């Protein structure tokens, strides 16, 4: 698939500090890319480099076929940027702000009005459109920020924490909206909410101290960081059968150990590929009734914590 964003050895230095360090990245067109990292890892600097608000110290980027360092107006026609830090113009009304943005993109007359109506509808701001932005709540302002970023039907949409101020319903709507863009728009989204990224993104990049430490699909990350552990959840009322099952499992040469927590058994194995069928055979022969059997997959949070050790909780902390 063609790449909408490409970075080749992108470096950004501020004096002695290297904010982005030899970043190599390819984001396929039409995909939703989650960009993760701890505070100060270089996420915002990367977005600023890719949107032409800052220039690289070395290396090169191509966004929607153009180099952002050239300050090309055509690039800014093809992209959009939603920055949660931006205060927007508080003296404008919601609709006015979208009309202002639309005019900057060349919309006029009925085209402008219909496009504004469309994005207001999409972001659930129809009723608040006539109110001043200064009176908006944090969540409404974030929706408006997303609405303005959609005005030009961008090829590439850069989102900085797009759902951080939204309530659960608002987050759900915003993520649905982003999911609907799949295949039409390339979304480059930085977020601290790993659950959101896990829910909507096809591909994830993790940056730490300016360096990209992972760039893969969710499935690839889960496979790479999966522990060789299976979970078996038993139907209720099988305590005696469970004890027999544990004994049978422990006799297998492929099983390293079995832990039990209520109705759930955790089976650690030394060869996951061979152990799966072996465990299923043991289950079938034991006659126990099971509610669930699965290979445990790591969550994005597990992967993130493994790759960014500075984010590990301190020992002994709650």
């Amino acid at each position: 698939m063609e790449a909408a964003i490409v970075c080749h050895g992108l470096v950004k230095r501020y004096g002695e500090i290297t904010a982005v360090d030899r970043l190599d990245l390819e984001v396929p067109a039409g995909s939703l890319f989650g960009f993760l990292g701890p505070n100060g890892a270089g996420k915002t600097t990367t977005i600023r480099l890719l949107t032409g608000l800052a220039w690289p110290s070395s290396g090169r980027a191509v966004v929607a076929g153009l180099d952002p360092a050239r300050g090309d107006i055509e690039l800014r026609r093809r992209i959009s940027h939603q920055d949660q830090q931006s205060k927007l113009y508080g003296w404008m009304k919601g609709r006015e702000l979208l009309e202002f943005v639309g005019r900057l993109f060349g919309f006029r007359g009925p085209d402008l009005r219909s496009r504004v109506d469309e994005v207001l509808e999409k972001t659930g701001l129809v009723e608040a459109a006539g109110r001043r932005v200064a009176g908006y709540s944090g969540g409404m302002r974030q929706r408006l920020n997303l609405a303005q970023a959609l005005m030009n039907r961008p090829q590439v949409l850069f989102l900085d924490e797009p759902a951080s101020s939204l309530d659960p319903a608002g987050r759900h709507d915003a993520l649905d909206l982003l999911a609907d863009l799949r295949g039409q728009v390339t979304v480059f989204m930085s977020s601290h909410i790993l659950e959101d990224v896990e829910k909507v993104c096809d591909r994830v990049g993790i940056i730490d101290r300016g360096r990209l430490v992972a760039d893969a699909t969710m499935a690839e990350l889960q496979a790479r960081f999966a522990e060789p552990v299976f979970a078996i959840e038993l139907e209720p009322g099988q305590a005696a059968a469970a004890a027999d099952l544990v004994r049978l499992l422990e006799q297998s040469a492929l099983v390293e150990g079995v832990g039990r927590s209520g109705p759930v058994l955790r089976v650690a194995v030394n060869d996951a590929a061979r152990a799966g069928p072996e465990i299923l055979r043991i289950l079938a022969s034991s006659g126990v009734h099971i509610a669930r059997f699965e290979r445990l997959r790591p969550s994005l949070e597990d992967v993130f914590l493994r790759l960014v050790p500075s984010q590990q909780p301190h020992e002994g902390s709650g």
Partner: protein
Amino acid sequence: MRGFAVLFIKEITEQWRTGRLPVVAVIFLLFGLASPVLAKYTPDIVKLAASSIDIHMPTPTIKDAVAQLIKNLTQVGVLTAILFAMGSVAAEKESGTAAFVLVKPVSRFAFLAAKFSGLAMTMTAAVLLCGLAAYLYTGLLFAPLSPLGFGAACLVILLGLLEIAAVTFLGSTLARSSIPAAGIGIVALVVAGIASSLPNVGHFTPFGMNDLAGALALQQPASGWGGPLIVNAGFVVVTLAASWLVFRRQEI
């Protein structure tokens, strides 16, 4: 200049909606009205205030009214120019709205041009409003002035104010917040004030041109002002060009 018209309209609307334009208009109007009144009645006020002392005050003339206007307009104008220009670019960088606009298909030149044009338009409207009020009241209290000469005098004062605004605007482009920008404007003000009293140099400074404004308003002979006018107008252009050179490749 892509995006200039949309950004310029936004600047003017913002000044109106945030109350800056009406407030400045009212203040300048009051100063315009007050200048000839103060010139006319200051001797009477002084006599009333110090009734036990025998003070001989000369009879006020139209010359006093014009001098009072130039003094008032320069003082309030300089303050307004610095206050308006200090946050013009810096405040937008600080709040993130500059980045919000500059990732859209607009040129940085248009962004700066719209900002300074909006500022210059407000200053022009304020100075002309002040001038109109002063012109009418001076005619009522003293004698009619030449409208052309008086209009030209207002434009000369406006040029001086735009110089201070342009330097503060450059500061606002260089800085990331309004306070350092105001500092640069105030330093320019002090330097211009000192330079205006220097022989041979004074006429080439914003305040040095007040003599020309007075002469034009009173229709007195004024020669040798071509050079200072060109230098002062050129200073505005050069300062704005410097702002653009700074802003053109500035990281937002």
